[in-house]
């Protein structure tokens, strides 16, 4: 009788499981966590195709297909909401992505250990400040009677205060630099740890070959952290449709709405706040789907071009 081709594999799998049982046992809580908190709630996505009303059972809600997706795509708000999301994300990638790399490189070049630690700590601190406090700081700085306008008026550079917070066209830059201020130090940690992992002998060899500090950064440090940079860039591209939430709600106001409203805030206002959960779910689902496609696309591109990928 011919042996089943699966048998030996199953046996090998079981032997492997038995040999690595401690590792599997350690991983078990995380598998359960992912299953319960990441996969199980996914059934809720079904409401984006149903006429679900909060409080009524999901099962039994009428099937409406792509109604809510089409409603969002044909909404008069879709154009500027999508534009704001893409622009804020793009600015975040163009400015916010390289900034922590530059900071990490600069910090790595510092020689005084205590000075370096102090600068590092100072740069992390904004990460721990809530957006509510950050928004108040920004109001104090950029309000019509804020510090910046006070300086401009005293220096006679302007006749009337500049309405930074009430003018739409400033908003994209405002949010980009607010995000940068809060996140630059924290994001640089991963690059600093990647830099720390570079073999010091490479720098010694570079010095022997006559490389100056810029040369070492260009030929040793940057190639050494290339994998980290690419992986983080792929993840960043995947979240291109998630351009923020709290910061928009706190820093934005009706005057700047046409520049601050992004997909997340729109889904919250027109979905959750109005009790239209299926609409909010449909917008969120679409956002996740596009994010997933972008991650895989960026990953594919990176594998082809740089031979680096996350999956």
């Amino acid at each position, binding site marked *: 009788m011919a042996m089943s081709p699966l048998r030996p594999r199953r046996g090998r799998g079981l032997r492997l499981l038995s040999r690595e049982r401690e590792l599997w046992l350690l991983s078990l809580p995380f598998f359960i966590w992912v299953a319960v908190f990441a996969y199980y709630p996914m059934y809720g996505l079904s409401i984006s195709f149903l006429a679900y*009303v*909060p*409080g*009524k059972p999901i099962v039994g809600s009428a099937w409406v297909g792509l109604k809510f997706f089409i409603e969002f795509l044909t*909404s*008069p*708000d879709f154009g500027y909401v999508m534009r704001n999301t893409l622009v804020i994300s793009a600015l975040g990638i163009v400015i916010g992505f390289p900034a922590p790399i530059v900071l990490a490189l600069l910090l790595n070049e510092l020689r005084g250990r205590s000075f370096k630690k102090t600068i590092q700590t100072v740069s992390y601190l904004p990460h721990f400040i809530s957006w509510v406090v950050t928004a108040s700081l920004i109001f104090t700085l950029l*309000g*019509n*009677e804020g510090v910046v306008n006070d300086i401009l008026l005293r220096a006679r550079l302007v006749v*009337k*205060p500049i*309405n930074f*917070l*009430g003018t739409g066209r400033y908003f994209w830059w405002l949010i980009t630099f607010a995000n940068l201020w809060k996140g630059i130090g924290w994001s640089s940690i991963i690059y600093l740890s990647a830099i720390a992992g570079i073999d010091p002998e490479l720098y010694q060899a570079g010095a022997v070959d006559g490389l100056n500090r810029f040369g070492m950064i260009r030929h040793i440090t940057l190639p050494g952290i290339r994998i980290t940079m690419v992986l983080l860039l792929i993840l960043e591209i995947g979240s291109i449709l998630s351009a923020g939430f709290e910061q928009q709600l706190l820093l934005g*106001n*009706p*005057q700047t*709405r*046409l520049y601050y409203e992004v997909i997340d805030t729109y889904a919250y*206002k*027109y979905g*959750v*706040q*109005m*009790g*239209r*959960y299926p609409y909010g779910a449909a917008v969120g689902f679409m956002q996740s789907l596009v994010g997933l496609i972008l991650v895989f696309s960026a990953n594919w591109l990176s594998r082809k071009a740089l031979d680096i990928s996350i999956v």
Partner: protein
Amino acid sequence: MKKHLFYLIPVFLLLSLSVFGTGNKEAAAGPPWKTVGTNEFGWQVPEKTLEINFYDATQQSPDYAKDTTEEIGAYILQKFNVKLTKIAYDMDPSEQQSLMLASNNYPEVIAGMTPDDAQKWVAQGRVMDVAPYLDTYGPIIKKKLAPLYKRLVDAKGRVYVMPQYWGMLPIPDQSAHIRWDWWQAMGAPKFETPDEYFEVIKKMQQLHPKNARGERTYGISGYDHFKDILPVLVGFWGLKDGYKEGADKSLTHWINTPEGLAMTKFMNRFYREDLLDPDAFINNYEQWKAKFSDERIVGHVGAWWVTTDAGHETWAKSNPNWTEDMRYLPVKLKAAEAKQAYLSPKNTTGDTRTIVTDHCTQIQNLLRWWNFEISDTGTRLIGWGIPNQPDSVWTFKNGTWAFTDQAVKAMLSSTFDYDHAENVLGQVAFVMVAGQGLMDDGKSTIWFDQNFNDQDKWRKLMNTSLRDTEYDFSAFLSVVFPPDDPVTVTKKQVEDLLLTGWPDAVMAPTEQQCEQRFMALRDTLNNAGLKNVEAFLTKGYKQNLAAWGEQ
């Protein structure tokens, strides 16, 4: 086997009938209600504590709710053996209610709801019909609400939604405001129209260009994006709550009217002449209040209690040199082209609603309490707070009530401590179904500070100035936007676009540009579906008028 089943079916039927039969008797007679006597308020004190939990859907902070209910809650428990628990959340009430519905976790009563939110609960079958219980357990409720009953009852005779703060309080709320002492010092120049008011405010700002701290002043400001102020502004031009009412009762949004353009140009003048606070469209209430209390805002449009709170009540506490003339007086404005100024719309059904949810297990006993709450004595207790204490504002002895001298004196001298009245005496902390109209004596009302309008010279001045500016607009204010109707989304889109575009028109550098921006905004709103919103409101308004027999 089939034979056995055949015999079992009637047994099950009999059993279920007996179960449902018992249930019906329970619903009619209600849960046990033994009393141990009648207290001084005429309430039959139950032997077993009656517990009522209610969510106040007005976005109160939990700390505030706890502070304001603690003392009066203990008093009611002691005197009435009724334990009232108010649940409050900081978050958006509509969002909170959606979560409650989705999680099936909500108390037996929800009060302070918007009519739209209340309708969501009704549509889902989560609300109990109180009509069958009113005759037995709520005779006072039925008597008091008799004039409004046909607004509350549906086609099948069911009453799902109860009004809160219902009734007509014939007192104006909204208007323009003038700083009294500064105006007197100017020789009290007369003004009647918005343009004349502008000139007075302009002159006043020129006379007071800086406050005591040397900070510059502005002619006018606003808060919360002018949401509450806009309907008052167009009211000067004769529009009702932001809508122009046609002879056929059709309603047109102010953006589609020449009056709306005139109002926007009026505001644009403040901007062009550097009299508009640059933060006018960004301020929240607290930020506006800080500026106003610092005497940096010369004029105001809005509710009288706003300038009272931010003005003389703050100054009386913080300024040792405060004199009673340092205050704002609400004053009427009427555009020359308007027949009448409509400034204070009144909803005699109340602005908010209360429901009994399907989680209530003793609706009969709940209605016993509401029957007391809605009575004149109950309304006084719930409205004016704990009586008969040294710091109380009223006494109630042997069935007779009276205001305390110290409270009246404090009220008339503008030194009344509202914080104490709320936090210690628990004024209006437990309102579920009480009304705000005039009570048995034809004078008193649930709002303690509104009981002295005939004695307080400032209130007399205000009421004289604002005579005939309040109007019953219940049929309009009771139009409900169904949650699943596309017009509800359109309404929100239009509101959002309006709040974004209107400041742009106000802050135009020239009057011509102001008009251009106004017209562009009009087109934007109409393209977004404003006409559908107008049609929906007109239809609902006319239906309410017809159903209530007021057309």
